């Protein structure tokens, strides 16, 4: 598959291809520290940050002579290195403090720990990942960030019904084809067949999630793919086949402020 094929379809979807230099972003862990206090501490170390306008706990790293990941503040769990756009799905899910929330495909835990922080460590989050090795990273991040309301299972999200639980809120940040901003050789590796294959897996995951979502419950579906098969087409398929209503939809094309991301928010009709 030629790069031009993808570039042309992005143009048809309304975005002119270019390679942005994306700013590094972090999320402040408000379970442990306020945004202002962390800003002051980082500033004292010569790290310049600025607010991410579209994410309430996010900060862009404007200037730093060393990696944020090697600061005491990071080790103390005061922040999580997380792309600005990937901070949006959990915010859009907007979990309440008494919710039972499902986070499918949860490792390494960026969104799980964000959900925990939005819920102020109340309620319960069920975090799933099918790869046990990835769950170790999830465990480390839950521990570092001081989350106390998470139960993690080594289960494929496709088998979530085996838990016999029904959820008020579900976050499905689905495995996807990704996009060129994360991989220099993305265009060389991807083809339309692979993308369609991922879209089919995502449909199976959407179905598995719908089956365990309470009537009136909210499902947020997201990918970091720019391909319509994995985004708009899956939304259309979901609305055609399930008793759900689309509440909100966002497509973020790559820019200096974010990698590409697609997010759709549904409600299961009563």
């Amino acid at each position, binding site marked *: 598959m030629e790069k031009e094929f993808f570039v042309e379809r992005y143009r048809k979807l309304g975005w002119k291809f270019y390679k942005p230099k994306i700013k590094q972003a972090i999320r402040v862990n408000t379970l442990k520290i306020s945004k202002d206090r962390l800003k002051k501490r980082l500033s004292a170390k010569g790290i310049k940050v600025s607010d991410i306008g579209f994410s309430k706990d996010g900060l862009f790293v404007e200037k730093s002579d060393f990696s944020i*990941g*090697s600061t*005491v503040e990071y*080790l*103390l*769990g005061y922040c999580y290195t997380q792309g600005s756009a990937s901070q949006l799905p959990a915010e859009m899910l907007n979990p309440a403090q008494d919710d*039972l929330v499902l986070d499918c495909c949860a490792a390494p835990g960026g969104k799980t720990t964000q959900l925990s922080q939005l819920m102020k460590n109340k*309620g*319960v989050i*069920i*975090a799933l990942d099918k790869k*046990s*090795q990835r*769950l*170790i*990273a*999830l*465990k*480390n991040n*839950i*521990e*570092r960030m*001081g989350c*106390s*309301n*998470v*139960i*993690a*299972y*080594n*289960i494929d999200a496709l088998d979530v019904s*085996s*838990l*016999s*639980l029904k959820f008020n809120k579900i976050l499905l940040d689905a495995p996807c084809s990704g996009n060129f901003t994360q991989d220099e050789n993305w265009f060389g590796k991807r083809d339309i067949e692979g993308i369609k294959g991922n879209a089919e897996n995502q449909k199976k995951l959407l179905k598995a999630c719908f089956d365990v979502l309470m009537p009136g419950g909210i499902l947020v579906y997201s990918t970091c793919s720019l391909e319509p098969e994995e985004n708009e087409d899956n939304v259309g398929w979901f609305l055609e086949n399930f008793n759900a209503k689309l509440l909100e939809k966002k497509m973020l094309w790559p820019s200096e402020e974010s990698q590409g991301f697609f997010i759709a928010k549904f409600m299961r009709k009563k």
Partner: protein
Amino acid sequence: MRPLEHFLIQFGIRRFEKGNNEIFVQDNKYFLISRGIQNIIKKTKKPFYSGIYLGKARGKSFFPSVNLLNKIRKKARNKVWIDEKTEWLFVCGRDIFSEGIESSTKCVYKGIITLILNKNSEVLGFGKAIKGLSEKGVVIQNIFDIGDFLRRERKKK
């Protein structure tokens, strides 16, 4: 004595404050879990992780988590505060020289296990006093520090 209790007694803590939570032990790993979590665990299969991870037991030894060290911070009898330069060296796994110590509680002497805190009283880990704190050279041996989070990530790769 159970490993967790044995660990805590070294800091002068005879009773662990659980609040309304329960301690749940699975495969020698200790977790502090809320009632909401308990209710779900009863109904489902074995979880990989739940609630607050406190640490793991191996034989009679207990390897605490950062969460547990934070939980005992206020009640722990043995505490040492270190300066900013030493803070970084400590989280890189290094031992502590007497020059890096800013203050300590009275009961830290040779052979004692102590929490290590920075100037903001944030827990950085724990170590063992191998000499009197005013003696020259290395006085506290690093046992565990929060830099372990980075080392675990590197190990993973």
